[in-house]
Structures are given as C-alpha cells and as structure tokens.
C-alpha cells in the first residue's frame, strides 16, 4: 500500500498545478520538454532551446539563468537521493520520459522503476530538498553528481547501442543531450565540457563498432574512416576550452584518453604510452574498478603485459566482464594460451551483447 503522499505526487500532473513550487517546475519541465516525438525531432528542438539558452546566458551577466531545468538536474542529483535513481529521475523530470521506457533503459521491471521514482520524488519533498541552485562553493561536488548520473545513463546507452530491440536505442543520445544542456547552462564548468567531449568521442566511433554483417569490431581493428569527424572535432574543441580553465578532473582526463585514440585518424597509430600516463593520473583521482581495469588494458597494449596481469590479480573483480576480457588479452600477450582461452570463455559467459560474446568465443578458439 503506497503512502498517501507518494500517491499524491504521482497524480500531480493530472491535477494541474499544485501548491508546491518544485512540483510545478517538474510539471512545467515535462510539459515543455516531454510529450513530443523524440530522437530526430529532439535534436531540432534542442538546438533551438540551446540557442535561446545561450542568448539568455549572455543577457544575464550575473549568471542567474531563468532556466529551471538546471535546478531540476541539481535536485535530481542531490546527495540525499540514491545515486542509482538519479539518472532515471533526470530522464523523467527533464526529458519527460515515462517510467516504462526508463525501466527498459536500465533493465529494471517497469513496476519496480515506477516505485523507485515515486519513492525518490517523495524523498525530495519529505526531506525538503531545496529547489535553489547550490551556492557557488557547493557547486563542484553537486555538479559532479549531475555529471555522474548523465555518464551512467550514457554508459547504459553505450552498452546497449546495438541491442536488437530498439527500446535501448536513444539513451546515449539523450545523455548527450543532457550534457549539452549542462554545458550551455554552466559554461564555466570544465568537467561538464569534459563529459560532453568524452561522450562525443565515443559517439563518433559508433558506426565503426560493428562491421557490415553486424559482427563486433574491437577498437584496434576499427576503420578510422568510419569515425565521425565533425563529432570528434567538436569534442576536441570542447576539451581545449575545458583545458583553459586549468582545473583538470576525472572526466577531462577520460576525454583526453579518447582524444589520444582519435589521433589515430591522423597518425595511423595509437600512442599507448600517453594513454597509460593518462590512466595513471585518472587512477589517482578516481581508483574505480573500471578505471583500474582500463589502465591494465592500456599497460598490456603498451607492451607491459606482466604488470598489467599483476594489477588485474590485485583487483580480483571476478564478476566484471571487462576484467576477464582484459585478463585474457594480457595472458595472450604473455603466451599463456590455455589460461587465456579460459579467460576469453569466462568473459564471453559474462557478456550481454551477442556480438561481443561471439567475438570473445572466437578468440578462445583461435
């Protein structure tokens, strides 16, 4: 039995403007941005909205933007809210997606996602989370939450970009759209530019991630002619702008790593030493399992498979598919064929993407 307050929140959109301003803003944002065809159309609307926002930003020297979507993003990414529900909340509040579609994006049953969204909204109201933008001093950590949630949504979209069912398609674009919004609203936020640059570099390579028959193509084998040049150029420009602020951060470093990969279009080779150095810095800032495994992968490609394997052994992330794939690669480079085959098979067993699974099993047989 849901609590009455939770139920009331759910019915607000149907009952018109309620007394509480944050609810009105949520409804207003949904009305402005929701209830319209998505994908192709969203780009046009977004472009118009962003042009308007840029004008507004320039005519507001104090930086007090009247756009409520930024407030909404900060409310959704408040530290008091479960991080796992932050990106879904943003998608609902700012992009107007319904719970069923968000549930499909995050591989959660629709009823469960609906309940979590209702709980999170009840929490926003019951905990009295303010609707004002954070004070300048509080902005960096709070912005980090906004960016992290967008990044999480993008990661989900990236993994599912080639899913046979179209329900996942579009989440990556929506995450890019949210990042564009944050960059437009907070032009001084270097990390926001870093995130957008990172995502654009990844998006640029999307056409090369599968061959004509739909088979997985690993990064090293991708045809750089199929990478999207304008998108990479936009990413590079953003990264240069971000660098001017001289406030390096995790996302700018990740974008810089993508930038090194992008250089292959010009040089025909990948500077793995540069990538290892960047991952070293990144691991100091953000020693997550994902970063450590990627660092181990870079070490192996840079010609150091033994330290790569040692790093992986220390992590022992045995439920993490990339850990097994990376381990298989390092073992291959070390000539430990039987162990490499077992690791490729294990990585295949943990894959959700059939094309990746097929590729890994082929490596195990090779």
């Amino acid at each position: 039995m849901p609590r009455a307050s939770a139920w009331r929140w759910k019915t607000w959109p149907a009952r018109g403007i309620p007394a509480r301003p944050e609810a009105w803003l949520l409804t207003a944002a949904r009305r402005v941005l929701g209830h319209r065809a998505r994908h192709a159309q969203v780009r046009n609307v977004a472009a118009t909205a962003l042009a308007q926002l840029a004008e507004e930003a320039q005519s507001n020297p104090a930086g007090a933007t009247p756009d409520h979507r930024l407030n909404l993003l900060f409310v959704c990414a408040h530290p008091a809210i479960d991080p796992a529900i932050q990106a879904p909340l943003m998608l609902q509040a700012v992009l107007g997606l319904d719970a069923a579609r968000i549930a499909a994006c995050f591989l959660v049953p629709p009823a469960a996602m609906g309940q979590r969204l209702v709980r999170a909204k009840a929490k926003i109201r019951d905990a009295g989370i303010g609707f004002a933008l954070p004070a300048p001093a509080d902005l960096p950590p709070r912005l980090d939450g906004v960016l992290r949630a967008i990044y999480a949504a993008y990661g989900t979209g990236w993994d599912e970009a080639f899913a046979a069912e179209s329900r996942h398609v579009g989440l990556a674009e929506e995450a890019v759209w949210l990042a564009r919004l944050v960059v437009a609203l907070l032009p001084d936020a270097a990390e926001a530019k870093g995130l957008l640059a990172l995502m654009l570099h990844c998006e640029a390579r999307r056409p090369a991630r599968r061959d004509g028959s739909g088979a997985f193509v690993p990064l090293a084998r991708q045809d750089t002619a199929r990478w999207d040049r304008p998108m990479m150029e936009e990413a590079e420009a953003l990264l240069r702008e971000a660098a001017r602020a001289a406030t390096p951060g995790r996302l700018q470093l990740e974008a810089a790593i993508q930038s090194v990969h992008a250089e292959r279009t010009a040089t025909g080779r990948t500077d793995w030493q540069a990538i290892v150095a960047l991952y070293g810095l990144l691991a100091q800032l953000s020693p997550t399992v994902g970063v450590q495994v990627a660092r181990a992968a870079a070490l192996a490609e840079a010609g150091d498979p033994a330290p790569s394997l040692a790093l992986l052994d220390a992590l022992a992330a045995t439920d993490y598919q990339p850990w097994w794939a990376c381990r298989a690669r390092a073992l291959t480079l070390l000539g430990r064929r039987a162990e490499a085959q077992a690791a490729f098979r294990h990585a295949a067993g943990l894959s959700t993407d059939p094309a990746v699974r097929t590729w890994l099993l082929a490596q195990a047989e090779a």
Partner: protein
Amino acid sequence: MQYMILFNETARDFALRSDPTRAPAHMGAWAAYIDAMAKAGIIVHGNGLMPPETGTIVRVRNGVRSLQDGALQDGALQDGAVQDGPYADSKEQVGGYFILEVPDLDTALEWAARSPSASYASTEVRPVMPPMPQ
C-alpha cells in the same frame, strides 16, 4: 534469495542444437554462460531441457486422463481431441532453467541478461515462492 531463470526459445532456436554448422557456436555460448554462473557460485540447480516435441502434456478432466504431444499448441481440448495445429515457429517455449541463489532481483536480472536466449528469444526471472507456513 532464490530465483528461477527460464530460458525461452523458438522452434528455430531449438533446431540450432542439432545444426552441424551452427551448433558449436550456439552451444559454446551457453557453456560459457553456465560456466560463468558456476564459477560465481550462484547455481542451486539447473538444466537444459530436451525440445518441446519430446514432451507430453497430461490433463485429467472428470477423471479422464488425456495426453497431448508437447509439440502441439495447448489449445482447448474437447473430449481429449487436440483442436490446434503445430506450433508456429515464433512461439517461445522453455528450453532450460536454473535456480539461482543471489542477493536480490537486480543481480538475478543481470545474470538473466547475460543468457544467450535473452538476446535471441527471451529469459524470464521468477522469484521462488517461500516455503508455505506449517
């Protein structure tokens, strides 16, 4: 918590098992998936099932036992006579199952998403009913 994950497959997917050129890749994907679950230590029990045409459906109505070939749709039975024809190729049937011991639904869904059938047909996750109170 225990969940049953049910792998659903179509007649075409079942046929892959005995397709000389495609069976190795098909069964290899399944073997890799099941090994990964075994190594994670979450399997309580599980099996693949022989195809539906090897199955038999039993019904007892008014004390009369009727049997039906598992390859036929379970349409209305009248006086023991099967009314519907063979399965359409697109109809999904259970091709295997596992009982998993995992902390929560999200973990069970994560494993279900890794099953090959999730990509080509469907995989269902059902919580195992707790024991009935005595």
